[in-house]
């Protein structure tokens, strides 16, 4: 067992992170007893597990996650949505209506081509095709607001421990924020000023993710910006 990098050191794909009896965690793989990184990021050694905090990652859907995607096709019994993952996602009518489906119901009147939807991943098919559902609070068609993109691997930072970061932002700015785990964030507010501020905040989080004490600094930042606006 040996660590070959400093904890939280910068690594690129292929870098040998450790040798010997350690478990290979996220964004790593094991080959001939050595653990290599698969993505750019910061290496983390903790209790027998070696993992990499990815600084850039493509989206891989997981069950239970909220995503924001656009409807790209309307079928006879459902919709196909692009959630920017490795494959398109399916949304069946029974997962979109809370009443029994009748044949005379027109699917495009529920979600039409190009509509943006907030949905939940309920299952993954055998080939990894995600199945979505829009039943639940805050799910369904997006009617307004602003979209901001962020690398999917940085979304946990935006949410914070038990939602501490995002709740703080919502409280301070009064904006509605819907976070898609696929890196698409919807910001909605009656005040345009506050929307602008949240967009700035999100950009700040994106560039400063993986620093400690970020929530406090973001809090200070929002306070400062609000002061400036008052003047």
């Amino acid at each position, binding site marked *: 067992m040996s660590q070959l990098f400093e904890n939280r050191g910068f690594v690129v794909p292929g870098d040998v992170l450790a040798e010997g009896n350690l478990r290979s965690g996220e964004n790593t793989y094991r080959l001939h007893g050595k653990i290599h990184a698969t993505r*750019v990021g910061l290496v983390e050694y903790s209790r027998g597990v070696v993992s990499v905090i990815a600084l850039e990652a493509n989206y891989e859907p997981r069950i239970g996650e909220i995503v924001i995607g656009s409807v790209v096709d309307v079928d006879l019994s459902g919709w196909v949505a692009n959630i920017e993952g490795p*494959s398109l996602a399916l949304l069946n009518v029974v997962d979109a209506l809370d009443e029994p489906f009748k044949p005379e119901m027109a699917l495009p009147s529920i979600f039409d081509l190009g509509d943006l939807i907030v949905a939940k991943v309920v299952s993954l098919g055998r080939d990894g095709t995600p199945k979505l559902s829009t039943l639940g609070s805050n799910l369904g068609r997006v009617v307004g607001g602003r979209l901001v993109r962020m690398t999917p691997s940085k979304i946990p930072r935006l949410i914070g421990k038990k939602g501490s970061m995002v709740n703080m932002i919502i409280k301070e700015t009064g904006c509605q924020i819907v976070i898609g785990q696929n890196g698409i964030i919807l910001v909605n507010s009656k005040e345009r000023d506050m929307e602008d501020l949240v967009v700035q905040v999100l950009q700040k989080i994106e560039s400063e993710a993986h620093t400690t004490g970020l929530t406090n600094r973001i809090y200070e930042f929002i306070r400062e910006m609000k002061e400036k606006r008052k003047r």
Partner: protein
Amino acid sequence: MSPTKRKLIVDGVRLDGRKVDEVRPMKIECGVLPNANGSSYVEQGRNKILVGVFGPREMHPKHLADLRKAVLRCRYHMAPFSTDPRRSPAPSRRDTELSMVIRNALEPALFLERYPRASIDVFAEILEADGSTRCACTVAASVALVDAGIPMRDLVVACSAGKVNGEIVLDLNDIEDKEGEADLPVAYMPKLGKVTLLQMDGVLTQEEFDRSLKLALEGCKKIYEFQKEALKMKYGKQEEKESVEQD
């Protein structure tokens, strides 16, 4: 081939002032295209190459999808103004072949089996060509793949070596490539120690081949440092902040 042989190496110094075992200075920048998932721009000598990566995403047309793994698609294309004289903008036989060569060089580094039915698309556009473009493209493409957040076994580095005026030289430029005796492009995964591309154009003896290959691998290691630096330029800042804050 023109019979007039110019002297390309005088007292161990090449036309562009390099020594025989020296690579050209290289500039790599990543994340240059906002609409691509990953991108990079590389300048190596007079080579100027732009690479964009998209995916993994749903494969179109669907019949090309593989049920077991993702399909890597590469496009190598030389812009009409990249060479003198101008070339036709249509993809040539050579472009098609190099697309395949670059795809084969990159494929071993990717976890294609993780994304069944998907496609990963790499578009490499040569804006200015100055020899060893297939190597420079491979170098740029692997940085762009990392920038796209696609998991990789290792970075892929590439460099050429060859024989010019009877001497084994590293990283051939356009003139050396055209007037030299042999060209040996090599792509390599430095941390795994595996060669993913090995081509040869021209004539080398067994002994010269061994020396060229060794030299090319040395060159690869030098270029690997440029790649790492480029990634550090974009992502490494976050590490510095981290350490500052801990103090």
